[in-house]
C-alpha cells in the first residue's frame, strides 16, 4: 500500500486495534492479579495462579461449562448438516418452489435481535408441549434446537458463498466418469468445500458456546449454560474468576483460529494452484 499520504489511515488502524484489544488484554493481565478487587494491581502477591485454581474448583462453573459443551457440539454438528443442505440447495438449484422463502429464512436469523428469537422459540415450545406433550419441559434439547435455528443460517451463508466460486465442471467431470449425483457430492464436492464446512462447524460451536439470550429463554431448571452463570455473576460485580475464564477462552480461541487459518491458507493455495 501507498502509506505516503495515509498517516490518517495508520492512526485509525492503531486506535481501532487498541480499542479492540485493550479490554481483552486487561482481562488477561488481571487474571494473574492476587487482589480480589480485580482492577487494583496487588504488586506484592502478583502474579499468581490462585484464581485459576479457584476456577477449576468451582463446581457451578464446571457444570455449566459441561452443559455448554454438550449443547455446542450437538448444535455445531446439526447446524452443519442443515446449513450445508440449505447452502447447497441455494447455490446449485437455480429455481425451485420456496427458494425465495428459504433464502429469506436463512438471512433473517443473522440479524434478528436475539430477544425476539428467544421469546418466540420459548412460546413455541410451551405451545407444543400443551399440544402434543413434546418437548416435556425445557433443557438441553430445547436450547440446542434454538441454537441450531440461528447457527444453521450462518453455516448456510458460508457454504453458499463457497459453492458460488466452485467450478461446476468438476462435478460434471465426475458424473461424466460414471459417478451418480449423490456419490459426486460425497466424493468431489464435500472434500473440496470441507474447509468451509469446518469453519461453519467452528462458528456454530462458538455461537452456541457464547449465547446468553436464547439460552436464557429456552433453558429449564438445572440446565444453566456457562454464559448464563457468568451473566448472573457479572451482574453482581466483577469477579477475578471471570478474568481467568476469559483468559482461557481467549487462549483457546486464538490457538484455534490461528491454526485453522494457517491450515486454510495452505488449502487455499492448493486450491488456487489447481484451478
Amino acid at each position: 500500500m501507498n502509506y505516503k499520504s495515509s498517516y490518517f489511515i495508520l492512526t485509525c488502524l492503531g486506535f481501532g486495534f487498541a480499542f479492540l484489544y485493550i479490554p481483552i488484554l486487561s482481562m488477561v493481565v488481571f487474571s494473574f492479579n492476587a487482589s480480589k478487587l480485580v482492577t487494583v494491581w496487588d504488586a506484592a502477591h502478583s502474579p499468581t495462579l490462585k484464581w485459576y485454581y479457584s476456577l477449576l474448583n468451582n463446581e457451578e462453573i464446571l457444570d455449566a461449562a459441561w452443559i455448554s459443551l454438550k449443547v455446542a457440539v450437538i448444535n455445531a454438528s446439526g447446524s452443519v448438516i442443515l446449513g450445508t443442505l440449505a447452502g447447497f440447495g441455494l447455490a446449485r438449484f437455480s429455481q425451485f418452489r420456496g427458494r425465495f422463502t428459504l433464502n429469506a429464512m436463512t438471512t433473517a436469523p443473522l440479524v434478528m435481535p436475539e430477544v425476539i428469537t428467544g421469546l418466540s422459540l420459548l412460546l413455541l415450545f410451551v405451545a407444543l408441549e400443551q399440544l402434543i406433550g413434546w418437548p416435556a419441559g425445557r433443557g438441553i434439547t430445547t436450547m440446542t434446537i434454538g441454537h441450531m435455528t440461528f447457527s444453521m443460517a450462518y453455516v448456510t451463508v458460508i457454504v453458499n458463498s463457497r459453492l458460488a466460486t466452485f467450478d461446476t465442471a468438476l462435478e460434471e467431470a465426475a458424473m461424466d466418469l460414471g459417478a451418480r449425483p449423490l456419490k459426486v457430492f460425497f466424493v468431489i464436492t464435500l472434500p473440496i468445500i470441507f474447509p468451509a464446512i469446518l469453519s461453519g462447524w467452528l462458528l456454530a460451536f462458538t455461537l452456541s458456546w457464547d449465547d446468553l439470550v436464547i439460552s436464557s429463554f429456552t433453558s429449564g431448571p438445572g440446565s444453566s449454560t456457562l454464559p448464563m452463570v457468568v451473566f448472573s455473576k457479572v451482574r453482581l460485580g466483577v469477579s477475578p474468576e471471570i478474568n481467568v475464564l476469559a483468559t482461557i477462552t481467549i487462549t483457546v480461541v486464538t490457538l484455534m483460529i490461528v491454526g485453522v487459518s494457517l491450515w486454510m491458507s495452505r488449502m487455499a493455495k492448493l486450491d488456487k494452484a489447481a484451478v
Partner: protein
Amino acid sequence: MNTAGYMRRFGVTGRGLVVVLPYLWLLLFFVVPFVIVLKISFSDIDLAIPPYKPLLEWVGKNSLAIKLDFNNYAFLFTDRLYINAFLNSIKVAFISTVLCILIGYPMAYGIARAKPATRNLLLLLVILPFWTSLLLRVYAWIGLLKANGVINNVLIWLGVIQDPLTMLYTPFAMYIGIVYSYLPFFILPLYANLEKMDWQLLEAAEDLGCKPWQAFYKITLPLSRNGMLAGSMLVFIPAVGEFVIPALLGGPNALMIGRVLWDEFFSNRAWPVASAVAILLLILLVPFMMWYQSVQARESAGAR
C-alpha cells in the same frame, strides 16, 4: 447451472430431499414461533402456567370464540415507558452505527490496502474478538470503566484527574459497549467489498485530474456503498434489540426495548405484553431486514 439443469431432469426427488429438511426446520422453529408470538400478544395475562389465557375459547357447547385483546398494544402506546424505550433504542442503535462507520471505515480501508501478508494478519486481528465471547468482552469494559477501574486509576496516576470519573452505567458506557461489540460486524462485509475493488480506478481518476480525496469521494465511496450498507444493517438491526450490553453497562435506567422485553418476560411474567413488544419491534425491523437482504443479493450478483 448446468448440473442443476441436468438434476432438474433426473433428480427431482433428490433435489426436494436436499432442501426439505432445512426448509421444514426453519419453518417450524423460525416462522411458526412468530405466529404464536402474534397470537399470544392478543391474549390476556393470567396468573397461570403458562401465564396467558387461551385465545380460542369454547363458548357454550359447540361454538368457538376468538378473543382478540388489543389491550396489550393499547397499553404499550399509553405508557410512555415503552414509547420512550422504542425511540431510545432507535437513537442508540443509529448513533452506534454512525460511530461504527466512522471508526470502521478507515480500518477496513487500511486493511484492504495493506500488503497481502499484512492484510491477512490484520484481518485475523479483526476476526479474533468476534470469536471470543461477547459477554466476556463486555464484562472487560466493566473492569475498565468502573470508579476504581483501570481507566480511572491510570488517569489519576497520570494526574489528569483528581476524582474518579463516573463512566460505568452511563449512556457513554453503553455506546462504547455496542460499538466495541459490533465493530467487527461492520468491518468484515465492508472489507469483503473493498477487497474486490480495482484500485487502478483511483489512479485513473487521479490521472484524469481528481485530487486523492476527491477520488475517494467519487470512486471508492460509491463503489463500497453496498458493503457499507450491509455492515450498517448488521450493526443497526441487532443493536435495536440488544439486551446484554445495556443490561451490563447501561445502568438501571438505560431504557432499551430489548431490556424492557426481557424484564416484562422474566421479572413481570407478562408474556402477552412481552409478545406485543416483540411484534412491534419486529414490525419496526422487518423493512431494514428486507433492505439488508436486497443489498446482499445485489452484492453477490455483482461478485460474479
